[in-house]
């Protein structure tokens, strides 16, 4: 379903975008590629260290808490499921905001951007709770209270990687929320209505989907594998 180029159309002769997208959008894609490599490098180094270890903590044991519930949940990974759902939902509302932008529907864009921001803030709140809870159990950079799955003493690699990578991702979510708030204000002020297009929302959307995409991989590496 990729766009086909009309026969005889010269793409690389200058004067037009050879990929038929706006410059800013193309550059956002390439920035996301570079960021993907950064996250990828972090996750691959996590995988390498884990593969080189004889044993590792069991995520089903470590991640069993839920806000408001004393002790452990009957099933593991409940809280992180909620976080994943929140982030995917916010991605959907972001796409709907972009769609509203295509229709030049200013109020629609504002509504969906508002929900996206809410989702982002909810995710950040959840992550903050998770960090606080783990810290309360004695986990932090350089401190790992959890045992390996085979009962042996675990290294600080586990917590170091966990906090660094989820922290780096959380930082991206935070900056994404800031960008989305700026987009909302610009929409409200009518900046895009005046320009005649909502391309900025699309670019912010690409960044937000990237944040969601990274979470999908982080979630898999730390909680499932």
């Amino acid at each position, binding site marked *: 379903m990729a766009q086909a180029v009309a026969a005889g159309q010269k793409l690389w002769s200058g004067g037009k975008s050879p990929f038929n997208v706006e410059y800013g959008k193309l550059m956002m894609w390439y920035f996301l590629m570079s960021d993907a490599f950064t996250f990828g490098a972090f996750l691959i180094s996590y995988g390498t260290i884990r593969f080189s270890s004889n044993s590792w903590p069991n995520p089903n044991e470590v991640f069993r808490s839920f806000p408001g519930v004393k002790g452990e949940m009957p099933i593991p990974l409940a809280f992180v499921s909620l976080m994943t759902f929140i982030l*995917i939902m916010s991605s959907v509302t972001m796409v709907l905001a972009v769609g509203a932008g295509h229709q030049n529907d200013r109020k629609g864009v504002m509504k969906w951007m508002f929900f996206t921001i809410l989702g982002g803030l909810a995710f950040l709140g959840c992550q903050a709770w998770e960090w606080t809870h783990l810290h309360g159990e004695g986990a932090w950079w350089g401190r790992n209270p959890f045992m390996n799955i085979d009962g042996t003493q675990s290294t600080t690699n586990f917590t170091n990687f966990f906090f660094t990578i989820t922290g780096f991702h959380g930082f991206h979510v935070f900056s994404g929320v800031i960008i989305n708030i700026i987009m909302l204000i610009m929409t409200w002020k009518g900046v895009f209505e005046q320009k005649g297009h909502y391309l900025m929302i699309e670019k912010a959307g690409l960044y937000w989907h990237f944040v969601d995409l990274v979470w999908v991989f982080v979630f898999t590496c730390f909680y499932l594998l």
Partner: protein
Amino acid sequence: MDHTHSTATEAAHDDGHSFSTKAIWRTFWILLIITVAELALAIWYYETDFLPKHFLNGIFVIGTLAKAFFIIAEFMHLRYELKNLIMTIGIPATLFLWFLGAFLWDGNSFKNLRNKYDRNHVEQSKKVVKEKEEKHEARKPGAME
């Protein structure tokens, strides 16, 4: 200024016809179903150990790649762009898979070599810490090396 404005507006309204709310919600349901399935398998495995973990990991990786594909293709709209643009993203991503494989192989090799030649490491890895009876009692701040 005018020239950039018109090309930008052009680009913005070019593929408007391919935007469909239905496709977006369909993608959402696909993502949700895959995620719920992965979680169900993880919890079921935790309770019953019904599959070798490696096999289960393979399923998780495939599920994750499927989700990534849908997010990039539909949410980020890459599927509807020009083929060359798709390639500038797709080809480096494919090379990335080599990057992943190479380093995991390396990590595994490191583990095998270390277990083979470093007796101290093997002994340390076998030391079972006393099983904790009460959850909040025998927690030690960990630092093995």
